[in-house]
């Protein structure tokens, strides 16, 4: 059941606008029971987010300023004039279904708050050199990547899967660390991040600082076995609610925690900063996450999964408002970003758009890594009866579901285009410029097609192996934007393959006398400098994208020639066209050692036909229907047909549709003796010279 806390959202926004302190936006409202539980605390207590976070009247350590809600946290930067949250949420109506956190770029205090199962977090902008995750004023340029909280560092990785993957990134790239604001001295203090660690098989560690009630005997040690941990029974993260309440009401948390035990099967992820501790609570055992994560490189804002849960106080020290800065080279973060930020309420919000890559197949999954991972991990509705293990199994099961089924209810998510226009100008990088995320900088996208992402939905990727080379538009059928995108991709694919071909083929033949396309002048002597050859593949015949596409074997007087998976250019009508062979095709012929005057052409045969758009899910034309609704096929819409071109066979038998691709000769005069097989393409390029 969706949990929509409209008033609380608005309250959070208002808080941000006015104070710059406290939890900025309680977004990430999710439609899971999990979230509902998370918010019970707030709901049960008072009518404000503050109370939910423990800063209400029941927080014993609050001073007057804190209670005022307006001056809590970081006083020096409490002016927050250009927070764009207010623009993103001009009203909460229909904006509540945001899956993710939106925070002001100048949010202060306990800003980054990630109850969102979508791993919401604010990264407000990209700087030139760093992905800026976290909200810092423009003048504080060095705070490129930060988590900014208003309390003792204690975090919950609501989305541990993302936490882990991103922290692997962080681990490699962290160059700077933590700045904390001392609320007593009102001075920022820098701390060097000493290390990041994670501890597999440990769960629910509640973290320590020198001033917190937790103990870690040696925060730099690899072995944290003596670390006091608190384990939530049975990995039941729903118990957090109880946990919070319990925590919040225990005055002597140290003793309470120290009496707890931990389970080696559980997971723990965290890091230490000098004597201060930052800790993560992961709800799902690390190994489980690690094994199932489809993310190869998450890159992105690790902090997006950091939470600032209500347990920060009491019982923990309130000496510090904390600013955590993780400096991550941009190059390590955005290299997989190749999607427009099209439906994030807050540009720079956590679900930094990227594609997911399946670790095993390298297939691209349309989605967003943090977003999708979180969605997968959390789009599980648990019943009260389920045990922790059952819940974990359910999560795992959900991980294997197609993402599309999990995001179909995101229709109310703001489109970025709705957002960028409302953003105010800010001093350096405007928020709107964030949306124009470079998908690459001198680094090509590993994604093959550019327009197959949401919302453009070119079907080219889906139809690649089908060899749908042309789109057959029909009168009376609505034109799909995706079809126009596919049209461009198809055309560009053809021209790019042609270029790629040029780059892949060796330049052979006598260029000075060559006449491109003058097939009649070709003399297949096999000599690279033949007087009458052409320097490139002959467009009058078929040829592979690269000569290495073709292999052979010769055994027991049988020659097998193989067209491997790849692209082949084949005459088509009055021109030629690239065909994709998605499984090897071979042809065998017998050649005895004594055979003479052998001169054979090898041909490819093709089949051309239309595949019609269809309402039947079993038909290949089903996907030609409109998919603009988050990739879901609407069979009632109809779409254009596709012209399919298939290589059906590879043979030495000439037919009317045959296109020669190779020529084989053996025992031809003095040039090619009987113990030699010469196989060439039709531009005089010697593919194989086999001595038998």
């Amino acid at each position: 059941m969706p949990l929509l806390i409209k008033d609380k959202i608005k309250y959070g926004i208002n808080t941000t606008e006015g104070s710059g302190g406290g939890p900025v936006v309680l977004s990430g409202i999710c439609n899971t029971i999990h979230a509902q539980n998370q918010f019970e605390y707030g709901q049960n207590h008072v009518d404000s987010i503050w109370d939910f976070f423990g800063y209400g009247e029941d927080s014993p350590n609050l001073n007057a300023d804190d209670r005022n809600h307006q001056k809590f946290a970081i006083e020096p930067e409490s002016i927050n004039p250009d927070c764009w949250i207010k623009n993103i949420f001009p009203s909460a109506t229909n904006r509540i279904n945001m899956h993710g956190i939106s925070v002001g770029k100048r949010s202060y205090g306990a800003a980054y708050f990630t109850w969102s199962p979508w791993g919401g977090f604010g990264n407000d902008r990209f700087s030139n050199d760093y992905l800026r995750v976290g909200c810092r004023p423009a003048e504080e340029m060095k705070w490129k990547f930060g988590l900014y909280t208003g309390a003792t560092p204690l975090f919950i990785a609501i989305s541990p899967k993302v936490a882990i993957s991103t922290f692997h990134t962080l681990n490699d790239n962290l160059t700077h660390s933590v700045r904390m604001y001392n609320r007593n001295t009102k001075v920022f203090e820098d701390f060097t991040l000493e290390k990041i660690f994670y501890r597999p098989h440990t769960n629910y560690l509640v973290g320590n600082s020198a001033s917190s009630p937790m103990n870690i005997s040696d925060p730099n040690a690899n072995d944290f076995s003596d670390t006091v941990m608190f384990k939530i029974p049975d990995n039941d993260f729903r118990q957090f609610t109880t946990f919070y309440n319990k925590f919040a009401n225990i005055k002597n948390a140290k003793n309470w925690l120290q009496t707890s035990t931990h389970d080696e099967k559980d997971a723990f992820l965290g890091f230490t900063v000098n004597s201060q501790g930052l800790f993560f609570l992961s709800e799902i055992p690390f190994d489980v996450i690690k094994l199932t994560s489809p993310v190869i490189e998450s890159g992105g804002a690790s902090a997006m999964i950091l939470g600032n849960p209500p347990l920060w106080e009491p019982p923990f020290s309130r000496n510090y408002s904390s600013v955590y800065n993780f400096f991550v080279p941009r190059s390590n973060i955005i290299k997989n970003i190749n999607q427009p930020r099209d439906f994030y309420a807050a540009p720079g919000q956590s679900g930094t758009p990227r594609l997911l890559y399946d670790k095993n197949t390298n297939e691209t999954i349309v989605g967003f890594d943090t977003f999708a991972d979180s969605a997968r991990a959390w789009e599980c509705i648990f019943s009260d009866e389920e045990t922790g293990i059952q819940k974990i199994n359910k999560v795992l099961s959900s991980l294997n579901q197609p993402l599309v089924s999990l995001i179909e209810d995101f229709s109310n998510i703001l489109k970025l285009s709705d957002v960028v226009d409302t953003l105010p100008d800010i001093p350096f990088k405007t928020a709107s410029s964030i949306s124009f995320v470079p998908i690459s900088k001198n680094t090509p996208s590993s994604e093959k097609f550019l327009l197959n992402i949401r919302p453009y939905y070119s079907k080219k990727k889906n139809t690649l192996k089908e060899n749908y080379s042309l789109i057959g538009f029909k009168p009376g059928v609505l034109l799909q934007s995706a079809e126009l995108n596919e049209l461009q991709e198809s055309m560009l694919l053809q021209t790019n393959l042609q270029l790629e071909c040029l780059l892949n083929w060796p330049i052979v033949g006598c260029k000075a006398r060559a006449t491109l396309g003058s097939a009649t002048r070709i003399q297949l002597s096999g000599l690279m400098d033949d007087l009458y050859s052409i320097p490139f593949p002959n467009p009058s015949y078929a040829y592979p994208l690269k000569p290495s596409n073709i292999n052979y074997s010769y055994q027991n007087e049988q020659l097998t020639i193989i067209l491997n998976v790849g692209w082949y250019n084949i005459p088509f009508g009055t021109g030629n066209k690239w065909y994709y062979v998605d499984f090897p095709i071979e042809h065998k012929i017998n050649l005895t050692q004594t055979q003479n005057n052998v001169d054979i052409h090898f041909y490819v045969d093709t089949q051309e036909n239309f595949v019609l758009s269809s309402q039947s899910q079993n038909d290949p034309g089903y996907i030609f229907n409109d998919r603009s609704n988050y990739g879901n096929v609407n069979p009632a819409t109809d779409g254009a047909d596709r012209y399919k071109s298939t290589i059906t066979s590879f043979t030495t038998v000439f037919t009317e549709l045959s296109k020669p691709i190779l020529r084989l000769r053996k025992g031809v005069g003095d040039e090619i003796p009987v113990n030699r097989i010469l196989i060439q393409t039709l531009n005089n390029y010697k593919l194989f010279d086999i001595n038998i």
Partner: protein
Amino acid sequence: MSSPLGPSPYKSRNGIFENHKYSLIAFKPGYSLQASELNEIQDNILFQNTYNNEFFYDVASSNAVNLSSISTNDGVFLCSLNKITISGTANKVRLDIVVLNFKVSDFYRLWAPLDDGLIHTLGENFQQGHHKSFHIEYETSFILCSSDSSKEGFKFNDNSGVVYSSSSNGADRFAIKATNGVNTDGQGSFIFKVTRLSEIGITPKVFEIEDSIGRKRTINV
């Protein structure tokens, strides 16, 4: 070079090839299709084909020896060396509006112009045997259609009238934006490098330009 589809009423936004900024039109569901967008598609494809052909011709008629390296190279290469000039006593290298090929995905290389050209002064004392290398930085991005007239994407709105209609949201664009740079030491990757062949004081001054795929051209100044 201009496209016949550039002027009104066709108004292709990529009608002038030298100013060709957007490689792909990213159509979105739910928005009206503009006639100019269809025209722009044709211009885009024509643009890519044109420079593919130019490149073919240039390579076929040159002594390029390093072609195969491109396919495994994520870098950039010039369509032709003919747009590189060297002039003046200060030996100013100019790369006027020029089209380069960028690898933007596993499948795609796209031709796109270098926005502002490139000018670099070698200096009078650029000596025989010395060389200077030039490389290009580039970024790819989606430029979103915007109703804000200050945004680049504003012009993607309906352009059939005298002014853009910001109430008619248009398709987004995929763009390559290139800037230039110079490697002073002549090391590392480069698009092209200039070497002085002749001694200082000898006229004409002779320079050799060599690009990343081995094409060479000699310029006498």
